[in-house]
């Protein structure tokens, strides 16, 4: 990708309005072949995942485990199992409930514990493929971390007709997908065909940005034998990797706001996920490693590394020659959508695609000034929203105003903040505003539940009082009538009244 002139109102040929051309910094690592990281001594495997219930451990402390052995699983389909990335010994299972992790003292990662599957995977039933994807613990490796088996199964039930492999990698700095496509094109194509088979789709498009010529030619060669697989070149434009934008660019289909790609018949998967699927289905191998780009101006030797899951970020950095003195910020992911790393001793997850150490010059975090309403954010927004209005309203606490300007549809891609000449922390404000809105909604739901419960309790008490009264009346009918009974019923009804207003007012506060 060529560097554009100082960004302003962009005028590029593209399939969608907006988008930006950030400086890509990919040359730092794009010519670095994937190296395998020497096995670290300690691997940390968290049991809580982004989706679904926390896992239950199947192993105990001091137990010897084999590479690829199942360590923890759950019956919840939205969580995926965790396997041992290396053979070794479990040294601890600790942490608070809900955020537990397994600590594995790794010894060897050259021999698989189980005998590999054999046979032609392309004759397998769809259900078998999905089952193997699920038991391999595969999630979307592009960053979403959504369980792949679940997505494929729902693509099948929704009768999707297009599998789109996302090789966009539009985030600056990251080149791990690029390297994978260059070095493992055949495995990616095979994985794509297996995914298509599992989802009963007979049309596959692998979309790659036009700044990755070598990846394109490698994939084209690998796909030449497969009639159903087409390799498409898309313009390099951020955020081309966004599902709805890639879908529109490749197929012309529009995902309605609030809708999913599956709604328009497209199953989108990352190229690295496809490769993992190939290994899971062909060889029965669980997902225990991934390729990560370690880059940034403050990394001494930027690289693309194949690393076992559970390796700590600090060890990745030291494997790349350590940090330079001018390191200003550590980022998990790409510079546009990545998160600041608060603790470098935490492990990477399945969805970590990059670790960046950026210098102050790269971050360019200027002090923010007043919005001058220049509209660059509006021109840059790939969702055609009004970032400046969202920002002004959210800052003023007007969440409804922010939602009217598009808060619900924001991708948090950061294009607006990237071009803002006033250096406003637009994306940060949107994140906070959306979190507040979600919390408000949950609070409203909770209050509604409380109100319903109070009402039901009131009705139940009344019902019980009436039943008691009826019973007493029946008893009284047998005996001579006494006038004081009626007073007792009124007292019970009063109790019900005094209970409910308190609960109701709590519900409304």
């Amino acid at each position: 990708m060529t560097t554009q002139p100082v960004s302003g109102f962009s005028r590029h040929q593209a399939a969608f309005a907006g988008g930006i051309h950030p400086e890509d910094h990919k040359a730092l690592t794009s010519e670095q072949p994937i190296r395998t990281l020497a096995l670290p001594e300690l691997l940390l495997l968290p049991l809580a995942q982004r989706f679904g219930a926390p896992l239950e451990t199947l192993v105990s402390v001091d137990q010897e485990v084999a590479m690829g052995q199942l360590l923890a699983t759950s019956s919840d389909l939205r969580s995926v199992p965790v396997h041992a990335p290396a053979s070794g010994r479990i040294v601890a299972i600790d942490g608070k409930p809900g955020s537990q992790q397994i600590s594995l003292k790794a010894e060897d990662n050259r021999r698989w514990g189980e005998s590999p599957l054999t046979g032609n995977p392309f004759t397998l039933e769809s259900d078998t493929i999905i089952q193997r994807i699920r038991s391999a613990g595969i999630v979307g490796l592009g960053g979403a971390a959504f369980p792949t088996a679940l997505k494929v199964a729902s693509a099948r039930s929704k009768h999707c007709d297009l599998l789109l492999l996302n090789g966009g990698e539009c985030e600056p700095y990251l080149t791990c997908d690029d390297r994978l496509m260059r070095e493992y094109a055949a495995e990616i194509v095979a994985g794509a065909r297996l995914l298509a088979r599992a989802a009963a789709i007979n049309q596959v498009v692998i979309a790659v940005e036009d700044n990755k010529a070598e990846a394109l030619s490698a994939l084209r060669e690998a796909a030449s034998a497969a009639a159903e697989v087409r390799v498409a070149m898309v313009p390099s434009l951020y955020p081309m990797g966004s599902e709805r934008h890639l879908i529109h660019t490749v197929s012309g289909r529009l995902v309605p706001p609030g809708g999913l790609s599956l709604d328009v018949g497209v199953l989108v998967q990352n190229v690295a996920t496809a490769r993992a699927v190939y290994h899971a289905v062909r060889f029965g191998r669980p997902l225990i490693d991934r390729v990560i780009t370690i880059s940034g101006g403050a990394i001494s030797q930027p690289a693309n590394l194949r690393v076992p899951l559970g390796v700590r970020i600090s060890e990745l950095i030291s494997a790349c020659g350590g940090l330079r003195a001018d390191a200003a910020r550590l980022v998990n992911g790409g510079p546009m959508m990545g998160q600041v790393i608060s603790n470098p001793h935490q492990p990477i997850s399945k969805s970590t695609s990059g670790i960046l150490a950026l210098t102050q010059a790269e971050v360019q975090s200027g002090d923010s000034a007043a919005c001058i309403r220049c509209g660059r954010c509006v021109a840059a927004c790939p969702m055609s929203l009004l970032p400046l209005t969202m920002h002004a309203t959210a800052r003023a606490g007007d969440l409804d105003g922010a939602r009217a300007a598009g808060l619900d549809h924001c991708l948090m891609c950061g294009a607006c903040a990237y071009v803002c000449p006033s250096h406003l922390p637009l994306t940060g404000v949107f994140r906070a505003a959306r979190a507040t809105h979600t919390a408000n909604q949950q609070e409203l739901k909770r209050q509604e539940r409380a109100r319903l419960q109070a009402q039901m309790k009131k009705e139940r008490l009344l019902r019980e009082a009436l039943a008691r009264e009826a019973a007493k009346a029946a008893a009284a009918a047998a005996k001579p009538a006494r006038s004081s009974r009626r007073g007792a019923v009124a007292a019970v009804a009063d109790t019900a009244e005094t209970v409910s207003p308190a609960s109701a007012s709590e519900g409304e506060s």
Partner: protein
Amino acid sequence: MIRFDPISGPHSHSGLSTRQVMVAVMLALLPATLFALALFGLPALTTFAACCCGAISAELLGCKLRGQSLRQAGDGSALLTGWLLALSLPPSCPPVIAALGGAFGVLLAKQVYGGLGHNLFNPAMAARVMLLISFPVAMTQWPAPDTAFAHWLLSEAPYLTVDGLTGATPLAHDAAIASAPAASQWPLLLGVHGGSLGETSALLLGLGGLWLVIRRQIPTDLPVAVLIGALLPAAIAHLLAPTDYPSPLFELASGGLMLCAFFISTDPVTSPVTSKGRWIYGLGTGLLIWLIRRYGNTPEGVAFAVLLMNALTPLIDHWMPMRPFGSSALPRQKT
């Protein structure tokens, strides 16, 4: 040092700053400004300096009164306001009046609203209108270009001027010019004639504006819309009644139309933020300029047209529907 603050992404930036935006506009104004200063000499220079000084002093005062850092005055916006005001004034304007205008524009049309980004009206144009109403005589006297440079230019290239028009702003004489053959109107573009500082060289202003467009510092749609809005009705009227209405070329080359199209209507603060909104705003501004010139009481209509459209900007922004990407896939909803 590594910072572990809970900072949100993006962890990268284009590097563009508000100051750079302002500086780019000033660079684009520079050729036309230097040309005008060379034509009109010392009085023009004092007018220009007085405007800028007035504007910056008012900015400093405003920041101080609002309890803001005085460094805010260094963002270039006040200087640009003073600069644009100076270009809209006659070169003979007394420095006191010019300084008053600069100070008024920044203090009462910008700082009282809350500073940069919060003003409803273009500060330079608000100041220009205030001066026109308060000092009508000083604001409507245009001396002929009378420096050594102007004389040299005229003697070397007499074709650069329009006959008999070295005096007042050509807009005051449009009836005479309208009847003149079109070929003799070309020199207006180059601007060796009387008029406000920024009226002199439409050509240099246009080139500066074009540079801004190419550098993507200003949106393309605004200048195009302003020019269409003013020149289309001018062309139609000229075709229907050539003796009553001057040609579009004359409209383009005289007065502040070029300055307005590229530098005044493109003030980000007071123009709409969406492309559609900018088209409405630009077409409206252009049309109003032409209407005021042809049917109004003042020879020039740029300032009034811009202020009128400024007042509409919040409405235009409010009316522009926000349609997220993919909305056209939804069935049209009745609201």
